[in-house]
């Protein structure tokens, strides 16, 4: 069953001579429970495409659906359509006036969950994402990697049906990134959801996804896609196998010929 559907999505920023076409004629279906990675050169509109599902940026034309509900009606996001999704942004976006645990529990607070159970669930989430004992700290006391773990915890705490990851590890060094990819996989296996991952790392896309979709340079078009069928859980050493590297190479070629 399709969970996310893009039908002929176009996005143009500005009007007249200064207009920039970010996306053109995107058709893409993401099935329930699938993890799809979106790769492409910077500025190809992959983040914009994610924002059209997240209810943050309306498309100029075309339709975005979550399950059987249209996300946009007259440039306003339908709360019923986007109610079950969570986003992890490029930056952790933790609120500096709240503690780490309060940040993680924020989605519950918005939904009116009482303080005691918020507290308990946030503590459990801290453990799950590997920042146990940091619940009472301020976000400014966390490293970038730990802050991003907290952001992932915040995204998962309300049990989203759809998880949108917008270059979540883009600001991390390569070593931390590998660890985070492993842990993200583990967390995702434990809390399955339909997942759209935007990344500019082909290796990261292949490592995590069921399917890798390539966007061409501006204006972004779907340039092709590749299924990834390695068994889960995948180990870091998978990246050194020939099959893995062949896949990475074919995706790189696909991107190169498209732009």
């Amino acid at each position: 069953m399709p969970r996310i559907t893009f039908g002929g999505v176009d996005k143009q920023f500005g009007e007249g001579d200064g207009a920039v076409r970010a996306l053109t004629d995107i058709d893409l279906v993401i099935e329930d429970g699938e993890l799809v990675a979106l790769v492409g050169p910077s500025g190809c509109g992959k983040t914009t495409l994610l924002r059209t599902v997240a209810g943050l940026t309306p498309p100029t034309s075309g339709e975005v659906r979550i399950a059987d509900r249209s996300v946009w009606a007259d440039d306003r996001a339908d709360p019923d359509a986007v109610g079950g999704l969570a986003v992890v942004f490029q930056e952790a976006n933790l609120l500096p006036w709240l503690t780490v645990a309060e940040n993680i529990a924020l989605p519950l607070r918005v939904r009116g969950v009482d303080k005691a159970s918020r507290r308990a669930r946030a503590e459990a989430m801290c453990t799950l994402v590997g920042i146990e004992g940091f619940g009472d700290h301020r976000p400014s006391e966390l490293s970038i990697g730990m802050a991003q773990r907290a952001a992932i915890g915040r995204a998962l705490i309300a049990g989203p049906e759809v998880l949108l990851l917008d270059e979540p590890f883009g600001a991390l060094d390569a070593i931390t990134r590998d660890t985070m990819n492993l842990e993200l996989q583990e967390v995702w296996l434990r809390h399955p959801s339909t997942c759209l991952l935007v990344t500019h790392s082909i290796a990261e896309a292949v490592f995590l996804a069921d399917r890798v979709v390539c966007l061409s340079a501006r204006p972004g078009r779907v340039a092709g896609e590749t299924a990834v069928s390695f068994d889960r859980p995948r180990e870091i050493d998978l990246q050194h196998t020939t099959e893995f590297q062949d896949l990475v190479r074919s995706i790189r070629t696909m991107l190169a010929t498209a732009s």
Partner: protein
Amino acid sequence: MRSRALGWGLSLLIFVVLIVAWKVYVEVSDVSPFVLPPPDDVLAGIGEVLSDPATWHHVWVTLQEILIGFSLALAFGLVTGALLGEFEVLDRALTPYLVFLQVLPKVAIVPLLIVWLGFGLSSKIVIAAVFAFFPITVGTRAGLQSVEPGHRDLARTLQATRRQQFMLVEWPSALPSILTGMEVGIVLATIGAVVAEFLAGSEGLGWLSVAYLNQLQVDLLFGVIVLLSVLGFVLYALVAGLRRLLVPWHQSVGPVTAGR
């Protein structure tokens, strides 16, 4: 820790040097004590002013004017600033008036306010409020308008209601800027109250300084000036201290402990 002690020490040294320079200047230049009394006379003057029970009545009058005026400015400034920050239409419609009000030398409208409100406390309170209103309004508006875009996106993806967005994200984001407005505001409220007393007072520290001036008691006038600066300093310190209490997370309070 060492640089901190050094800073305090240097501060004290500058004070001593200034006082000594003052004393030397008065001795050497033969300036009239009506123009500049020597520091020891001024010290005696301060003592005399402080020991006069009538002084404390004037302190109380001025303090009332400042505090009530500042509270009014805070209430109106927060509401106006919030309306401007939250509703773009209002911001466009009202900002020209607000700027006009600000560039207008407010001292010039003091006589007008006195004509309207009389010579009593109320005119001083309103003048103090008018002086403090603008920075608080602008601080509130600027704070609400400079919420981090990422925090706004987050609130929207959490499906927060308009009210939740305000309470959970916008208000806490705006607080540091509001506090900056309040810090400027309390200083301006003090100036406003004293200026109003100069021009049309019958009591209060501003009036008292004019009274001493008319009696050519410059040493006592200095005493009042010192008292006024201490009052202003304490009020400012109280408002500035709110920062530690209300926004301990903000970079304006202490250094960031680790990481970024």
